[in-house]
């Protein structure tokens, strides 16, 4: 379903038909990500940087842009910005602040203080789990605006609203804008980029990076072209509020542009608004309507020139980054570094825990599986002591617990925040079924089910199912399925 409305140079493409790459076009996408820094106070004043409090409680003359108030740069914000830059392989350099002049009610000074031609971090890259590198052009410091709430208009938009309310708690909150190079070629890469970036930001303590709460905001610059052709005209997509929406928005926008081009139309450079409800992007403003920001050097601040010792101290204090943590866990477990289990565990920050279970004597591979399955609700520091989980895994790998029993014991450990696996197993009646006892049961069943046994020996693998089922029943569930299969195979050959 495609509707053309050429009078508005607008085209509506049905959302989500899954065919975004048409006729040999390729996608060129770069992301601009704003993150709120996890500082105690605002970028230029001593008011608290806190989300979710009563409106207009974290304000002061600087935040409100009162006449005569002056900004003073927050050292912690600079340090967090440097952490971000260093974690993204950027060069940290001497920088300056500019005034970006524009008039909007939630910007009390009528200008935003932002870094312009001399940002603090330049020329870095972020490596996706797949190994592909996405370039980072810059990551610069700037202040956030207040938050407007439009009352009475449709869908919370200003148009048609009866009045507007402004909360200045967010005004002056420190932001770092991370400008990625247009190296992203698929919506999935965009999702990976943002997911990886989020993990890095959380790992280094720079931001809680929650897209849903707005502490991480993502704009996508999207264009399409035939392979080898010059870059196409790009559109900037705003209002993308989740990783999932990001993929959808990019996919929709690429298809919209391709349909326009195929219809012989030109793409108009503009800013477009992603609408979550209809799954489409809509014109917000064209390039011609763009503000003239009249940038000039902020005379109320001095140049920021962190010395080498400070930069090196920040670099030295950086924690291990997600990519290194995945590699470390992959090495310990023998699982591929971009396997889902590795990704999930590192994202949850439970990799140290898994490795601790290994150090306590448990098999690291089993620990990876169990922690992934059973610890989704736990944080980076699960309640179950690593030694307790190791104890359970030792029983399991030693054949003392079947995998079903192991799961039951694990459930008990989680429910009680730890415990002695041996005692739990005993209390549940999961006493050990040693190999001679198991072999006796297997022999009994082979004798009783001679027909199935004959078929199995004749190469009919399906027949094994009946045998295993009977053995499990005879052992009252205490037999380990894998051990039974192994024993049957051994007896056949």
């Amino acid at each position: 379903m495609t509707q053309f409305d050429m009078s508005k140079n607008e085209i509506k493409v049905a959302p989500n038909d899954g065919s975004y790459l048409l006729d040999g076009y390729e996608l060129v996408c770069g992301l601009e990500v704003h993150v709120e820094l996890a500082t105690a106070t605002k970028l230029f004043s001593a008011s608290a940087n806190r989300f979710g409090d009563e409106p207009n409680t974290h304000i002061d003359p600087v935040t409100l842009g009162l006449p005569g108030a002056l900004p003073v740069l927050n050292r912690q914000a600079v340090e967090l910005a440097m952490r971000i830059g260093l974690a993204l392989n950027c060069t940290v350099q001497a920088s300056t602040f500019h005034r970006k002049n524009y008039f909007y009610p939630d910007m009390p000074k009528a200008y935003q203080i932002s870094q312009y031609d001399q940002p603090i971090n330049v020329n870095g890259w972020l490596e996706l789990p797949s190994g592909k590198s996405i370039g980072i052009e810059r990551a610069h410091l700037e202040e956030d605006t207040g938050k407007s709430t439009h009352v009475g208009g449709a869908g919370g938009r200003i148009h048609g609203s009866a009045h507007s309310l402004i909360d200045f708690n967010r005004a002056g909150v420190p932001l770092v804008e991370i400008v990625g190079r247009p190296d992203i070629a698929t919506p999935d890469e965009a999702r990976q980029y943002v997911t990886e970036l989020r993990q890095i930001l959380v790992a280094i303590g720079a931001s809680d990076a929650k897209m849903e709460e707005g502490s991480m905001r993502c704009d996508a610059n999207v264009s399409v072209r035939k392979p080898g052709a010059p870059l196409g005209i790009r559109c900037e997509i705003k209002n993308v509020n989740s990783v999932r929406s990001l993929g959808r928005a990019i996919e929709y926008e690429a298809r919209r542009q391709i349909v326009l081009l195929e219809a012989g139309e030109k793409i108009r450079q503009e800013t477009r608004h992603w609408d979550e409800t209809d799954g489409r992007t809509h014109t917000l403003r064209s390039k011609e309507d763009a503000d003239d920001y009249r940038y000039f050097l902020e005379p109320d601040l001095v140049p920021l020139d962190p010395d080498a010792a400070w930069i090196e101290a920040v670099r030295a204090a950086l924690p291990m980054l997600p990519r290194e943590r995945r590699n470390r866990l992959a090495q310990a477990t023998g699982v591929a570094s971009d396997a889902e289990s590795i990704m999930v565990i590192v994202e949850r920050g439970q990799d140290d825990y898994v490795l601790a279970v290994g150090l306590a004597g448990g098999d690291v591979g089993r620990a990876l599986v169990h922690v992934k399955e059973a610890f989704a609700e736990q944080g980076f520091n699960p309640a179950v002591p690593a030694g307790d989980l190791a104890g359970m895994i030792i029983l399991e790998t030693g054949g003392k617990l079947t995998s079903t029993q192991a799961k039951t014991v694990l459930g008990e450990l989680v429910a009680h925040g730890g415990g002695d696996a041996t005692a739990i197993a005993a209390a549940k009646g999961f006493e050990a079924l040693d190999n001679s006892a198991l072999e006796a049961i297997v022999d009994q069943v082979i004798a009783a089910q001679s027909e199935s046994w004959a078929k199995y020996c004749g190469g009919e693998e399906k027949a094994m199912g009946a045998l295993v089922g009977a053995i499990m029943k005879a052992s009252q569930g205490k037999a380990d399925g894998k051990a039974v299969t192994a024993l049957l195979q051994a007896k056949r050959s």
Partner: protein
Amino acid sequence: MFRQSLDWTVEMTTIPSTAAAIADAVRSGVLKATDVLEAHLERIAEREGEIHAFNLVTTDEARAAASRIDADVAAGRDPGVLAGVPIAIKDNMCTRGIATTCSSKILEGWRPPYDATVVQRLAAAGAVTIGKTNLDEFAMGSSTENSAFGVTYNPRDITRVSGGSSGGSAAAVAAGFSPISIGSDTGGSIRQPAALCGVVGVKPTYGTVSRYGLVAFASSLDQVGPFSTDVRDSALVLEAISGHDPMDSTSIPQGPLSLQGVLSQGVEGLRVGRITDMPGGADPDVTERLEAAFDALQAAGAIMVDVQMPSMKYGLTAYYLIAPAEASSNLARYDGVRYGMRVNAPDTNAMYSATRSAGFGDEVKRRIMLGTYALSAGYYDAYYGKALKVRRLISEDFDRAYTKADVLLTPTSPIVAFPVGAKSDDPLAMYLCDVYTIPTNLAGHPAMSVPFGTGAFGLPVGVQIMAPTLGEQTMFRVAASLERSMIASGGG
């Protein structure tokens, strides 16, 4: 020197005319701060009607402050180096709970929730604020005729302007309403009215006095400084208000200036520079006084040297791009929403428009337009960008000049106080008033004006002493020397 005796008698007690003498007397218990205050309030009652130095006289707050000073002295506590000294504050500095208007209708009714750092430091030194003085709206002007609340007249001749933009502060000191006052200087706004009113006025090095709480006009040029009747009082005030302020990022990280100790050092061997290629236009009566100043300094042992400032003639043009550019950004916040006046209209945009149309005066609107244009895409390089280059060239001129000279001398103003209305319709003629004062603002250097006799119509003439960054001590030695020579010649 045009200098009246401002000493007078209250109930058998003589009130000295200088801040230093008043503070000494109050600290030692010889005088009561309350008596000092009442004497000055009386002066205000007598002449304020014809001069209009103040937008607001804070009688009640001043009486309360003076009583606290007296209580401190009675209890054996030292109220500070400005104990009981009445002081007038230019009405573009924030005073907690007290209207701060910038002489603009747009700030009508606004009471700042905080004190400017300068105001805090003055109070901590025991000074008693007696009121907020008139200025050209948002400090844009050279005559205090651009005030929304009326002209400030020159106490030396009430048919003439007091200069500007700190005309109210200059007039307050010249009229004896307070021995000292505070102004701000963006392109000459302290020095030029000081010269026209016959008092001392100092613009210190950019960054020596905090700008926190000074309502910004052009942030990279604005600097706060004192007015006084003599050189020592300006030194005293500067010592009290200077020094690093963590609330102002452009504040120089160093302690307060130390100036009173150098005043008696003389100028023996100091190199005093004459700018041979100085832009012309000063009236003969003014240049005559400048020559007299050179002679006086030479007689006191200083060495005269010639220097060149080839870019100085472009200073005025550069200033009238840079200052309005910054002003256009600084003044964009006045929209009638959060504070100040509001003119209601059917919708929000119309309200902004109506508020600004009614709230800003013509000169302010002119500079907002000029500055917005200078910063606009497509014009930035030709105007604002070029002005910044001129600014650098002027700094380089100064750097070269100061390898030859320790201070430079020029007239403060090319003319003596002119009649009210004489230049109101000619902005360019008005801008020329600042031709000698602007270059130091562009360079961030200190400069001061000292009264040095009279010119046409017996009106005061000021001589400007300029010095390199943080050269205040040398500058004050020269100022004190000129003052001594005037007193010796009977001009005091």
